[in-house]
């Protein structure tokens, strides 16, 4: 950016009277920068920066993997979700939306959960038939829409749920090693 050149030119080359605004491939016409008497290697900032960045990313990765191995803080919801388990077709390596310790009003929870469950079951059956090799994916807008219209009274709710988006980053990569039965499955009811 030549704006940056403007900065460096004004600070360093005030003695120069010629125009400090030129289009040039060399962005930085340095003033008297002396390279003598350097104690460390001249590219030490470059090397230090990239090493630091790599260390930080690896550290972040290890922290995240360590988190996968330590205990779960949500043990109290275990009984509630155990009762409702009968779904089995979503990938869950990340972000399964459906549980958190926040609980909204119970009656709304009940009917929403049952509706949602029904829809998920429909989708689950569809998925099993159709997408056996690639494994069901979460952002299954199309799957939702393929749910048969003969689902009767839940039709309008299904239409609502066609817009339901679950983050797409939970879907695994192409070389997904998750087969149908490997998936972390069973959507528990949504307890929000």
């Amino acid at each position, binding site marked *: 950016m030549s704006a940056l050149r403007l900065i460096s030119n004004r600070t360093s080359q005030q003695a120069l009277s010629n125009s400090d605004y030129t289009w040039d*491939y060399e962005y930085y016409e*340095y003033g008297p920068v002396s390279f003598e008497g350097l104690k460390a290697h001249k590219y030490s900032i470059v090397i230090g920066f990239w090493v630091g960045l790599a260390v930080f990313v690896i550290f972040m990765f290890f922290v995240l993997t360590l988190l996968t191995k330590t205990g779960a803080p949500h043990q109290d919801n275990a009984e509630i979700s155990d009762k409702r388990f009968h779904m089995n077709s979503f990938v869950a390596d990340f972000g399964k939306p459906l549980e958190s310790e926040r609980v909204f009003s119970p009656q709304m929870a009940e009917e929403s959960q049952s509706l949602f469950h029904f829809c998920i079951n429909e989708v689950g059956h569809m998925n099993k038939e159709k997408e056996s090799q690639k494994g069901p994916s979460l952002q299954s807008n199309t799957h939702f829409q393929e749910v048969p219209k003969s689902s009767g009274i839940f039709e309008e709710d299904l239409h609502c749920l066609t817009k339901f988006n679950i983050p797409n980053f939970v879907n695994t990569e192409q070389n997904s090693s998750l087969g149908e039965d490997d998936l972390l499955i069973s959507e528990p009811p949504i307890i929000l």
Partner: protein
Amino acid sequence: ENISDFSLNITDCTQVVVPEEVFFTVAAAGILENLLILIAVVRNKNLHLPMYFFICSLAISDMLGSLYKTLENIFIILCKMGYLTRHGDFEKKLDDAMDSMFILSLLGSIFSLLAIAADRYITIFYALRYHNIMTLRRALVILAIIWAFCAGSSIAIALFSYEAATVIPFTILFPLMMFFILCLYVHMFLLARSHAKKIASLPSSTVHHRTNMKGAITLTIFLGVFLCCWAPFVLHILLARFCPHNPYCACYMSIFHVNGTLIMCNAIINPMIFAFRSPELRSTFKKMFYCSR
């Protein structure tokens, strides 16, 4: 002999030049890829959802970044060939406009990533109320506010770039946003992990620990890519402002073109880790390409 001493000193840390072919190839690939995503989202009605609109916003800001670099290179080449004068007023205005386009791209990227992370967060933690909270209209309003703010700040920063005060907030914004996005994703990740543990405790399912590893890998890739592509440039701005005479800083600043190329690489990688993970988008692409044949 002063000049020769000068040149001797300068050649100690010469500018690392990226070949123009590489530059233009990377830029063109970035622009094309992001344009494809925009076209796919516009054409497929199923993709008119807040999630995809945020991904489009990211695609637009990536495209702007690559476009900026391409235009700048073209102008420099034109200058070298003599079609444009070096000291003209028009060129100065053009340069300011392009600088503001670049800053717009950076700010747009950061805020789009933030919007995507927030959208995913709401999807996970407020799943049932999600499409009451995040309606299409609200998503568009949020995007309009983000882009208006980015446009205003970019023009302000480009106009007042000589002030010290503009560089500091610019470089503080970057780590702040990164940290916030990291917190959002880590919270989501913790939820997924506890969910996985719960499922693993059931007798009927088989769970692979690899799936949790994939979450960690995905998250690391998201943040790692953004950090590796943008942080070198942000550091460059800081060093240019605060220590332009220091030989170490000068050597860092000599790899400026490599940093610019990294930003364009980010424009190529971002669609792969955000947009192309969606099967709906992939199937739209397939349809587009098969129909055209």
